[in-house]
């Protein structure tokens, strides 16, 4: 991958969403004026080398925001740019590391083959061997060859999520979107995930993490954003050098938004 156009120009954030309005509904709903808005003016920005956590109640529009940033959904109004480009175009040119909330791996594929294919699709030929070893390490399977030769869908839920995450991070994408990444992960896998996120930040990626687990996200995030009913409600900076109290963060974030 070349770096052309991959970074946002000047001080422009790598991920930018401004006053996004996105709604669900087919032709019938649109004609009847019964569209179901999921985002009603949400705004967010993530700079290169920054981790932003997105929190909020169920149905707040976190997943919809991710799908819009991936270019899988189109915004009816507002501005959405990834690396200074329209999201779908950026994704096709440079790739995005995306992990959905519900991980459904394709059947038939072995874990090893999935990782290989993800590496093949995202890394240049001369870097693939190293990228594959890195993907195995990111999944936490270095000393677990038996899991790699198993069918991916026969692995446990947590392992499937680790496989998907390693596939998503293959090729070191500059934009990483993780939707509920901590769900179903055991303690070592959570530690591995935090390490993966910090590595992504260290290499200059913009990381957006949606999660209900405030205690986990305050350990990795530079900012925490509350999304409520499709609107960005609160933005709270996190100083990783400080000893952060989850209760204090919760109070700051949800004050007046209970």
């Amino acid at each position, binding site marked *: *991958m070349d770096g052309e156009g991959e970074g946002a120009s000047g001080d422009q954030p790598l991920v930018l969403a401004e006053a996004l309005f996105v709604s*669900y509904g087919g032709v019938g709903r649109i004609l009847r004026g019964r569209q179901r808005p999921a985002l009603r003016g949400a705004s967010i920005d993530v700079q290169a080398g920054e981790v932003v956590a997105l929190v909020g109640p169920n149905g707040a529009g976190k997943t919809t925001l991710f*799908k819009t940033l*991936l270019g*899988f*959904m*189109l915004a009816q109004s507002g501005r959405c740019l990834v690396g200074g480009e329209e999201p*779908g175009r950026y*994704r*096709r*040119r*440079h*790739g*995005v*590391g*995306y992990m*959905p909330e*519900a991980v*459904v*791996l*394709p*059947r*038939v594929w072995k874990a090893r083959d*999935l990782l290989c*294919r*993800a590496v093949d*699709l*995202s890394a240049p030929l001369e870097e693939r061997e190293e990228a594959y070893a890195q993907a195995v390490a990111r999944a936490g399977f270095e000393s677990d060859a038996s899991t790699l030769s198993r069918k991916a869908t026969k692995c446990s839920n947590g392992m499937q999520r680790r496989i*998907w995450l390693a*596939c*998503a991070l293959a*090729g070191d*994408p500059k934009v990483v979107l993780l939707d509920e990444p901590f769900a179903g992960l055991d303690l070592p896998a959570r530690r591995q995930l935090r390490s993966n996120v910090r590595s992504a930040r260290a290499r200059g990626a913009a990381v957006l993490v949606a999660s209900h687990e405030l205690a986990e996200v305050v350990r990795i995030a530079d900012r925490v954003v509350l999304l409520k009913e499709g609107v960005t409600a609160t933005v709270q900076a996190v100083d990783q050098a400080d000893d952060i109290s989850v209760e204090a963060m919760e109070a700051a974030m949800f004050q007046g938004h209970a």
Partner: protein
Amino acid sequence: MRPLTPVEKRIALLVASRTRGMAWLLAVMALFALAPPHAPVRGAEWIIVILVLFFAVPLILAPSHQEMIGPGAALWLQKPVRELRFVFARLAESMAATVALVVLLVSAAMAYGNTLEWAPPMPLDFVLPVGALVSVITASVAFGTAAWLSRGSKATVLALISLSLYVYRPEVADPELVRGGLAGAARLVLLPTPDLLRVVLSLTGDLPWRIQPLLACLAYAIGWIVVGALGIRWSVATGRVARVS
């Protein structure tokens, strides 16, 4: 009612887990009751069509549903790839595997049939091209329907095959209808059974060899692949892929 014994429970579970497979088998049997294959190559047709229905259709539908528009699509489409380039590459892989499997199985079945003398002896230079052609056509139809329908594509493919075989049966086909506009429109959708049969009969030496029927079959397959590609493009452009994911 007395409770089931452990063995009965296991049998009941086994039967329940095979319901869809059994329904598919019954549907295929019904298809042959509705439209028995043409007489000159009966045994070969049976074997090829049954194997294609059992292997080619599911083998193409699975990646189409799971990896192109289904929940697994986001795994690949997040990578720096153009949707259609990726889809065509994945389709080519699946189709190559499908054709190879069907040809292998048809050859094995023919060899076994020959030893039992229940199938007419069929040389490999007949089995290989016919098996490959039927697989490619059926796989294209399966891909074209799967790209648009998230449910019921298997039944649609079966219905299309049944209808194609039924409409073109000599005793059913109305010459006026075949020459008329309806057949012209239907020919775009239904499988090119007459052209396929001409290719088969050319290979058996019953008809002189002509390239047009083969080209018609390939054009039909390409048409369905284009329909599928448009479906994938539409799914990504309208966000349908995200809703399925």
